């Protein structure tokens, strides 16, 4: 089944999840924990890593059972598998870091209904090999971790004046905008980050398009010039002509 589709190497699969299909900034999935747990870099990172582990395990498990599960009841089966894994991760976090467990609070069991996990199970793991699914889950999870860490970093920096996890203080807490640690700041910060990323992407696409347009224009001009040259050559064989040269500056201008 995998042969029909364009298969990606494990490395490509990883990078796809981190950059091109970043779940936080590009796909805009799993917004509840993204906004709810990123009051500090440490919390964002903790949440991201929990999701990373859940994604790898569920993707592997669902990929393993994909041939046994009848398609009609696949969603309930997936949800049960995910709930099981999330419960295990919940215990692990509680045992390893009780402070993280209490600061993540209700968002930890809510990983069950995180759209990224069910989305990857349904869209990828349900018809790909175990190995590919693990790498896909790893890429998506790392992308999510990156998104949450970025958001947590900026919110903590602007909201408290420093980042505790990295152990540096930029400015005093008393002049920091605690707005960014509160709920409204979460929405604003995420909106701004996605907006800036989109603006860069739009600009890049426009540049790419301009380069493509210029290339097409040059190719067309060359073709026209060739034809013209051919016709001229027919009429007067002695005449020298190389029109393509005069079209070259157009390319540079467009770039």
């Amino acid at each position, binding site marked *: 089944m995998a042969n029909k589709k364009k298969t990606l190497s494990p490395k490509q699969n990883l990078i796809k999840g981190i950059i091109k299909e970043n779940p936080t900034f590009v796909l805009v999935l799993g*917004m509840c924990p*993204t906004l709810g747990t990123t009051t500090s870099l440490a919390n964002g990172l903790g949440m991201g890593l929990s999701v990373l582990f859940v994604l790898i395990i569920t993707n592997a498990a669902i990929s393993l059972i994909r041939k046994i599960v009848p398609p009609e009841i696949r969603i309930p089966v997936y949800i049960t598998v995910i*709930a099981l894994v999330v419960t295990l991760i919940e215990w692990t976090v509680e045992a390893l870091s009780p402070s993280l467990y209490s600061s993540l609070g209700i968002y930890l069991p809510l990983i069950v209904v995180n*759209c990224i996990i069910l989305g990857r199970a349904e869209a990828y793991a349900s018809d790909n090999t175990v190995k590919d699914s693990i790498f896909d889950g790893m890429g998506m999870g790392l992308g999510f971790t990156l998104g949450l860490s970025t958001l947590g970093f900026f919110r903590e920096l602007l909201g408290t004046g420093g980042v505790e996890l990295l152990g540096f203080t930029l400015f005093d807490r008393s002049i920091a905008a605690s707005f960014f640690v509160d709920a409204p*700041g979460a929405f604003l910060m995420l*909106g701004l980050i*996605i*907006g800036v990323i*989109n603006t860069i992407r739009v600009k890049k696409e426009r540049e790419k398009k301009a380069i493509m347009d210029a290339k097409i224009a040059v190719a067309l001009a060359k073709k026209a010039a060739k034809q013209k040259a051919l016709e001229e050559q027919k009429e007067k064989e002695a005449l020298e002509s190389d029109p393509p040269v005069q079209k070259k500056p157009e390319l540079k201008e467009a770039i």
Partner: protein
Amino acid sequence: MKDLIVLAFSAFLVQNIILSQFLGICSFLGVSNKRSSAIGMGLAVFFVITLSGGVTWLVYYKLLVPFEITFMRTIIFILVVAAMVQIIEMVIKKILPPLYESLGVYLPLITTNCAVLGVSLLNIQNDFSLVEAIVFSAATSIGYTAVIVTFSYIREQIYKAPIPEGFKGVPAGLVAASIMAMIFKGFIGVI
């Protein structure tokens, strides 16, 4: 009685589920494009949250606690929610076909709406009694509906505004949501 009113008011406005608890953001951003779908989703969520809030409370205290399997709550709750959605879908289809026509599409989506599971878990976390749990669930879901419907009106206006290319869609919506969250923060002073 007075406590219940305060609880309901706080769940509805001060601790609004979308704007201060960050639950149900996916549907908040996804469905609020059109006013009609926002109203449909809001109503469907109201039914599901209120009913499943009560049922999960009963399941937890009458089934999980006596058998000492409270650690299974995440799995059991998500199954209860999925079952509730199915039952509500069937009941509405049988009793009120016109309502089913307008809500039908949104019902299956609700199983993975974190607001539903979130309210069930909050009921347990806050040690509510059954009555408190039902009041809390109902008030919370009314808060959800109010915000999602108001926001759909705002988003329709955002479409007409001249916004930079990169900020169109989700980023502009998030910035608008930030302003709305600030307004809702003002309600803290009321209680």
